[in-house]
């Protein structure tokens, strides 16, 4: 029976619950959740049931808390998917009840991509928050894969998308960009991530940022380059002052 059930995890967790093997049921449900790609709702329920199985397992608080925390992290990632703007889901021809499971990198792209036409600083902040969920690039083999899971690469990608939300024509290089550009997504994003103490972890290397292909048109605009350098430098200084 055990080997039969191992091959059929969808039955196994039920059997384990019936036999009072709650920790085994938890593990099976976590396994099912990790395998689930077709339905976001199903994945969520596997995680929820797995969490409940641990909570009521009668194990020590330390064990329960550790496993609950793991599930909470996975639930959080699904929450980013559940709170995708409806316009994005409509473009994908799906809805919250029937959508499949999106990978972290796809989620980032959806939050900051063209389809999210009304994207604002909150969407970009969410994209940054998803970065820690990207699979560890040690496990990646090909160079293409390793690039696409490199956290720094994704940070630059998100900053570029934020910059490109606004047109940077007619910049007054003499003015204070934090005043004259305060309407732009980029500066709203800087402000938001600064006030939530997140900026320190996501601040890009300006050289690398300017080298990005997406910014090739803007790069030759000396006042834009100046604006970007000056702004990031000012932010960096603010970080250092507040840390000190």
């Amino acid at each position: 029976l055990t080997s039969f059930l191992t091959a059929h995890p969808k039955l196994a967790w039920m059997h384990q619950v019936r036999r009072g093997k709650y920790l085994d049921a938890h593990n099976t449900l976590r396994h099912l959740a990790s395998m689930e790609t077709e339905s976001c709702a199903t994945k969520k329920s596997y995680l929820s049931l797995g969490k409940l199985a641990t909570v009521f397992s009668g194990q020590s608080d330390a064990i329960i808390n550790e496993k609950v925390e793991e599930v909470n992290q996975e639930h959080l990632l699904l929450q980013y998917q559940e709170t995708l703007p409806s316009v994005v889901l409509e473009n994908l021809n799906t809805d919250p009840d029937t959508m499949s499971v999106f990978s972290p990198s796809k989620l980032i792209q959806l939050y900051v991509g063209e389809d999210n036409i009304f994207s604002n600083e909150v969407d970009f902040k969410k994209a940054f928050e998803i970065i820690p969920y990207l699979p560890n690039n040690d496990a990646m083999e090909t160079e293409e894969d390793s690039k696409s899971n490199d956290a720094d690469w994704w940070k630059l990608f998100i900053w570029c998308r934020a910059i490109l939300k606004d047109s940077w024509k007619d910049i007054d290089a003499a003015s204070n960009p934090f005043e004259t550009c305060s309407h732009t997504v980029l500066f709203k994003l800087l402000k938001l991530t600064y006030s939530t103490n997140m900026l320190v972890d996501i601040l890009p290397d300006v050289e690398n940022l300017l080298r990005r292909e997406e910014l090739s048109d803007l790069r030759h605009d000396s006042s834009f380059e100046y604006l970007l350098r000056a702004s990031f430098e000012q932010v960096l200084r603010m970080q250092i002052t507040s840390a000190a």
Partner: protein
Amino acid sequence: EKMPIDLHISASDRKKIDAIDWLVFDRSQRCEALKQSNAVVRMFLAGRKLSAAKEVLLKIPSDSIDVVYTEWGHKADSSVPLPPDKDNTIKEHLCLQAYLETQQAFSDWFKHYHNKPSASNPAEPTSMYNSVSISELVAEELRQKKFDDDVIMWKDRLEQFCDSVAKKIYNVLLFPQGWLADNAEQLEDKDESREQQLATLREQCIPSLCDLLITVLTSTENHNSECAKLADVIASEDHKLYKLFSDSEGRKLLNRIQDAMIDTL
């Protein structure tokens, strides 16, 4: 499945219920009336006296919350928010109301569930040759058709009752900032016995509501899969409902959800 326990109203309960009439008489005392009625309802719920609790709430005029705000407006500038104790009193009143609505919805579903049309007996052959006449055949066909229609109507109605129960129960489970949880912390005049009662009622009512919902979902055709959504709600960190279950209640819950989900495989 069975109806939740509803103990009968004693003479001393009756006195408490009737006293509410006097409390709501003076508009300027309406907040105090709500506070007192909340306390009486809490006591009735803890004692599993649902009808008594319902009678108390029926005595509260439906415009009472407006009255509390208006009366407060007479005393204070409109920009001054309600003090925490008044705010909590109103919220508690709404929570208790939402809970009693779940009980009403369940009782409607329950009555309908047990009122399923029963199959009529096929016509007995009456003619001497042991055969059924044409008119009897037609009558039988009509009877059968009527029965089929009745069953379809019964099922539709059961579905509506089921949806209503689910909606009402989720209103309680997902009550903003938590069911019977105070909005604001009241620093002065802290009423510890009240807080204790609220906590006890949360632990008593929330697990039993979840149990009730599973009963309704699994007894109404094609609703078993919705038990998975209930698991999501209970496991969610937003309301942390899972913390209100004892281990044995939680295990019972998991077993019932598991049973429901076998049927969806």
